[in-house]
């Protein structure tokens, strides 16, 4: 609805779209471009691109997915060929999702089963909101993730893009996305587990 009205020139409708998506796009831009004014500039040009192509916009497309694809194309061009490798995601150098030493070693009767099981989280009830401390931990883990894992986690779990939208925007296969997402989520869980263990022993 807002899209159609924006296409007809409604400033209110256009700004409603901006309010809904702008901050997400800035966050996505900063996955590749730490400089905030430069990231904002790329996002602004994404909105210009949307206006220029509104007449051809397919109603069946997700606007957020479309904006994200357009933004990534703009960033690739702006950052130039010397940064092209930042857009080629890989699972190289990834550490295992769970520390292998937490499982019984090969040859043991319980090989591959927990020998240091997960620490219970008393407050991990479904639907509970993260505390400010838990949010800060997750933000810190995301900032410290390897680039490819950070990109996939932010696009899929924080911004809620579908697998096919990320595949279309970055050309990253479903299988690789799955691997990167699993590794990233595991690191977040692991950091939260350490936090809970510390709280319990303090």
């Amino acid at each position: 609805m807002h899209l159609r009205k924006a296409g007809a020139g409604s400033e209110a409708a256009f700004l409603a779209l901006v309010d809904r998506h702008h901050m997400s796009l800035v966050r996505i831009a900063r996955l590749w471009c730490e400089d905030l004014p430069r990231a904002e500039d790329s996002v602004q040009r994404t909105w210009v691109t949307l206006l220029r192509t509104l007449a051809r916009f397919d109603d069946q497309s997700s606007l957020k997915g479309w904006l994200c694809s357009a933004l990534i194309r703009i960033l690739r061009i702006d950052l130039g060929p010397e940064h092209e490798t930042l857009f080629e995601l890989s699972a190289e150098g990834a550490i295992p999702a769970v520390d292998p030493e937490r499982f019984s070693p090969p040859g043991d009767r319980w090989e591959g089963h927990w020998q240091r099981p997960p620490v219970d989280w008393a407050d991990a009830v479904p639907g509970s909101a993260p505390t400010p401390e838990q949010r800060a931990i997750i933000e810190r883990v995301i900032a410290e993730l390897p680039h490819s894992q950070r990109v996939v986690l932010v696009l899929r779990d924080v911004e809620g893009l579908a697998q096919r939208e990320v595949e279309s925007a970055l050309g990253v296969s479903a299988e690789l996305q799955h691997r990167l997402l699993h590794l990233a989520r595991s690191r977040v869980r692991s950091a939260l587990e350490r936090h809970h263990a510390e709280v319990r022993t303090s």
Partner: protein
Amino acid sequence: MKIPNLVALTCLEVTELMTDYMAAELEPADRVQFEQHLYACTWCMTYLTQLRRSVEWTRALQPVEREASAPSREALAAILQRWKNDGSSR
């Protein structure tokens, strides 16, 4: 995802399959095997619950300031105005 010929899954294997399970991407027979492990293993069940909470909490990380800043809104409103005035760009 197809689990390669496993009679019984270890906890290590189960933790590696959790994202596939959460996305409902295990083959039906593999899903049964995965769930049978969960029925018997409290620790893997705990791990799955924690992974689910981690994803929920990550999804809750939307910026506190959702609206675009005033300068951004002004700049974009000006862009819209120019676009409206420039018939050739439509």
